[in-house]
């Protein structure tokens, strides 16, 4: 059900861990639907020089966390803010429809970390207008297409 790339990032996730004295930390998700993602950023001159993550979630959640960190590493904060969940999913050669919501979390986690960065540095990003890292992100599970485990 998962592409080779997803399985690769699940098996050998890039950038797992924590950054001590991180410049920004973001955590999103809620344990109710299975996903918690935490991202640590080291930022120098507006460039993300290091990034680490921890994830409690399914294979897709772990793989998208890993891919998202790869995609923003070395990028400017601005560029990182433009990261979409679709881009993460595409970089993984796609996700099953029922697992798309997991990639939303990766996007949200990056935003949450930058939100943290903006707050402590008194910066303003219009991309973050209306963004609330503490809200319950509704990564709308599409019940219709999903598979229950009934055996």
């Amino acid at each position: 059900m998962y592409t080779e790339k997803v399985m690769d990032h699940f098996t050998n996730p890039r950038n797992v861990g924590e950054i001590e004295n991180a410049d920004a930390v973001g955590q999103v998700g809620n344990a109710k639907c299975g996903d918690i993602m935490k991202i640590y950023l080291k930022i120098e001159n507006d460039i993300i020089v290091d990034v680490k993550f921890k994830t409690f979630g399914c294979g897709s959640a772990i793989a998208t966390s890993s891919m998202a960190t790869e995609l923003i590493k070395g990028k400017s904060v601005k560029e990182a803010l433009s990261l979409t969940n679709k881009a993460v999913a595409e970089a993984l050669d796609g996700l099953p429809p029922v697992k798309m919501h997991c990639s939303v979390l990766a996007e949200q986690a990056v935003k949450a970390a930058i939100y943290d960065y903006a707050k402590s540095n008194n910066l303003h990003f219009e991309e973050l207008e209306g963004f609330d890292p503490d809200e319950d992100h509704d990564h709308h599970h599409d019940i219709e297409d999903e598979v229950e485990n009934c055996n």
Partner: protein
Amino acid sequence: MKKVYLDYSATTPMKKEVIDEMLPYLTEHFGNPSSIHSFGRESRKAVDNARDQIAKTLGAKSDEIFFTAGGTESDNWAIKGVAYAMKGKGNHIITTKIEHHAVLHTCEELAKEGFEITYLNVDQYGLINLEELKSAIKENTILITVMFANNEIGTIQPIKEIGQIAKEKGIIFHTDAVQAYGNVHINVDQLGLNLVSISSHKIYGPKGIGALYIRRGTKILPFIHGGAQEKKRRAGTENVASIVGFGKAAELAHESLDGHINRLLALRTKLMDNLLSKIPYSQVNGHPTKRLPGNVNISFEFIEGESLLLSLDMVGIAGSSGSACTSGSLDPSHVLMAIGLSHEIAHGSLRLTIGDFTTDEEIEYVLEKLPPIVDRLRQMSPLYEKVKGGK
């Protein structure tokens, strides 16, 4: 790669004797049992023989066994069949919160049609409370349907006591014995059962075939209409080869039941005890003793089931989980919720189910591979940080 199948509750491989018994009916003996010529009679004999074999395993009469396409159809038939047959008498059905979806969703459909459903609670082990059952019974109660053993946590209900209560009140009692059959002794008379659902692919027989035991005199309407098969109670050309396989599988399971139970129990104990002692922050779900012999269900805190299953799959180990991430709905398993687990704990649940082909070596393999996988996932989990940090 080494392959270790520990998902016997999902489905079982077929036994060689079962396939051998089926093969002639997939090749030369292909007649339709309803035909009166020799091809048909050959098939008819085979179907009758399988019916005898299955009846024997339940202490039932042959004419009380009706073949279906599986456990799901049996459950649908039993519940809707009784509901519609008895609706002149009442519209109240009692079931539990931890039934298989084949029962739960059928009850929900009936609720839409105006039937009233009581869902009994279960305790932390997954057991219903007999007093709660008694007080749930009303004038208009027409059916009690309580599963024999649960597919996720393996808990075995006090079926005999339920049967007694049902009998005293004159209420029809159905049990979904899909998981129990072939793993527990079942005698329909001793247990006071009116209707029993069973399924072949859980007992080393073919998929797509099951049966409903219907005690003589039980008021139940047909569910699938058409030809006059199964004494006009279940239409459709008989699935002869699969019926033959199911009969053989049932016979084999019955003959070796005690040995099977003991063997599975030994392997189960070894697997469960060692996992618990090797892996901190783990807990068993289900009852310590009133449980299916092959069922292990453990929650590992701080990790999520699908990741665990994928990691196990990569080392060739096949299991299942009650995590929401594998369930497709926003919520984790309704069974794990009903026994009072928190969402987090339910998420980290792993079901490993042992069967007749499981070896001691396979258990050793799991005991070697599983702990480091749990550890690796925990290292990645934001939830684990606090604990490590010496909370």
